[in-house]
């Protein structure tokens, strides 16, 4: 059973052929190359109540920009650090990092355009009304909550005047709203709007209304962003790191196996087989979760290869002792497994504690290390005990029958 599962898992983890097609490895950007950018968001000009809206709006804008770079899976997320709101942008495999940074840093540009014609002949005529004239945007509800969600925009004095002229010219016509050159909304003007506050109604869901309000706010950009942390790694260096780590991992595994066989003989060979199965199973689990494999993560996993046989060593030493006490081979194996369990559990607990704390209190790169270390220790507990025991039982049966 385990052997069969291991073979299937083996195909699954292999980067080429079957495994690569079904579910390719998720590699961290320190291995495939890419950029990890952290921006501080200056929210000092934003009222407390609007902060989430503004940050989400910014994130949305940046996400749309990085999507234009053909990045496989760009990650943009907000984070809190020392009371400071940050936006983290992860671009894996992006070629021109400099250009990406330049674009992300640009102020999102929201503009209103007049619409002429219909269908394929639609033309958008630029106006002088843009995001700079928007004071704020909010989600509200029509008829004090009875109607559906709507988006209300407040213009500043100058904007109010421009908006008034624009709406006067376009009654019963749509007015297009562009963000970074992309059309995001084209509400129809129903009347001339004076006073600088407008409401866009429509069949919005609450989420759609919220997204629209966020985009207006981003266009108003009351929250400048500054790049405070940048880490870029060239694909060549990433590939080199991965290659070296794999070579080191293979060398380490080989040395451990040779040592085990040299020191424990047949038992050591069994432990080596269990170690290989452990490696395959863990890799399969990393892939299934999926764990993004960073360089630190790979290193953490390689460390667990050195630790995975620990449980076997504890068991084998116990078996030796039980034999010395005069037990038969079968019962000393049984006793060895039973009595070594306490030590195995105890000695792994401290590593589990460390890995858990590291996972929760560190940044992404260390996180990968902590995660693979933790998963590795847990899987190795299983493999050392179950797999090795099974192997020993099976071989014993063969011996007895012979």
């Amino acid at each position, binding site marked *: 059973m385990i052997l069969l599962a291991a073979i299937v898992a083996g195909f699954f983890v292999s980067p080429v052929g079957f495994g690569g097609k079904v579910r390719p490895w998720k590699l961290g950007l320190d291995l495939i190359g890419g950029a990890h950018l952290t921006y501080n968001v200056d929210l000092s000009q934003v009222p407390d109540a609007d902060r989430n809206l503004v940050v989400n709006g910014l994130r949305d804008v940046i996400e749309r920009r990085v999507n234009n770079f053909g990045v496989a899976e760009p990650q943009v997320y907000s984070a809190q650090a020392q009371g400071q709101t940050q936006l983290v942008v992860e671009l894996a495999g992006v070629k021109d990092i400099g250009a990406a940074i330049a674009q992300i840093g640009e102020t999102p540009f929201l503009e209103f355009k007049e619409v002429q014609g219909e269908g394929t002949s639609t033309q958008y005529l630029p106006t002088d009304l843009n995001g700079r004239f928007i004071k704020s945007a909010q989600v509200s509800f029509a008829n004090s909550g009875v109607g559906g969600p709507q988006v209300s925009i407040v213009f500043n004095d100058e904007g109010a005047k421009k908006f008034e002229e624009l709406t006067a010219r376009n009654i019963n016509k749509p007015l297009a709203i562009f963000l970074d050159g992309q059309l995001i909304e084209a509400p129809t003007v129903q009347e001339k709007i004076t006073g600088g506050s407008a409401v866009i109604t429509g069949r919005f869901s609450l989420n759609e209304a919220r997204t629209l309000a966020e985009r207006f706010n981003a266009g108003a950009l009351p929250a400048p962003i500054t790049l405070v942390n940048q880490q870029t790694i060239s694909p060549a260096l990433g590939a080199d790191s991965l290659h070296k780590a794999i070579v*080191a991992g293979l060398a380490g595994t080989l040395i451990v196996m040779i040592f085990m066989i040299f020191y424990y003989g047949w038992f050591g060979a069994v432990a080596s087989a269990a170690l290989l199965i452990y490696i395959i199973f863990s890799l399969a689990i990393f892939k299934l979760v999926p764990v993004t494999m960073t360089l630190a993560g790979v290193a953490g996993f390689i460390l667990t290869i050195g630790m995975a046989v620990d449980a076997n060593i504890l068991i084998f030493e116990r078996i030796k002792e039980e034999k010395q006490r005069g037990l038969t081979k079968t019962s000393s194996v049984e006793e060895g497994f039973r009595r070594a369990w306490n030590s195995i559990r105890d000695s792994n607990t401290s*590593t589990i504690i460390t890995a858990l704390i590291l996972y929760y209190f560190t940044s992404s790169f260390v996180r990968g290390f902590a995660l693979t270390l933790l998963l590795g220790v847990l899987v190795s507990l299983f493999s050392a005990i179950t797999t090795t025991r099974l192997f020993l039982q099976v071989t014993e049966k063969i011996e007895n029958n012979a």
Partner: protein
Amino acid sequence: MLNVTGKKYIYLTIAAILVGSSLAAITTWGFKPGIDFTGGTMWQISIPGSPSADIVAQTVSSIKGFEDAKVTAQDNGASYMIRFKETDENGHNTLKAELASKFPGFQELSYQSIGPSVSAELKKNSYTAIVLVLLGISLYIAFAFRQVSRPVSSWTYGFITLVSLFHDVAVPAGLLSVLGHLKGVEIDTNFIVALLVVMGFSVHDTIVVFDRIRENLILDRGRHTFAETINRSVTQTLARSINTSLTLVFVLVALYFAGPASLKYFMLTLLVGTITGIYSSVFVASPLLHLAEGSKKSPVKK
């Protein structure tokens, strides 16, 4: 049978010298904090033809704003590590353009710039993690030894485990301090992580030995002296104490020599910590246990 209790003063003196000189190194020279903790920029580049680090340094420091840049060649000029204070994307672009014009074929391998707010955060997180790991491990030790109370109290086992943990962390930390002084090796968050992981491993080994002492004490029911029980337990568990760490040492050695350069000192810290861990679990923890018993032994028992 090993006689760790008989020669305990020799073993403990060696440990004391190791820890003492490590602490001396740390207090005199301190550590060279990396950009993780100070903020700044680390830039790794490659230049065909491998000019000397001095030539690269001259070029970089002639650019306005980067006068304080430090350049070290890595792997015989295969790449250069350049460190300077934090800069914005414009500074980065200026540098790239200047170097590309001076050295055709110049390539950027990696670029890491950390602002002061981020480094403050990393520092704070490191402290939090250290405190929590120490707390977690102490609680765990207290839990593991809750049942043994003869002939030394259970908190003595716990305390000694912590002492040997300190030993295992102090030595690699001291080494990095020396390396920082001699070769300018910097410590980063990886260093902190390595120390925390060493703590976890260190407790492993000590627990295996103490577990055995605990078991033998129950089996013996006072037929042997405490010293004999300790020595017998250490001898019985010697192979597994060494072997469990040794397999890890093999892997670490492989990673140190064949692994990626960026993890070199991370692996070295782990390696030294693991090796001192082997020493401490055999030659520090058990002798200390005997010492603790000796100090409170009543004359009636003799």
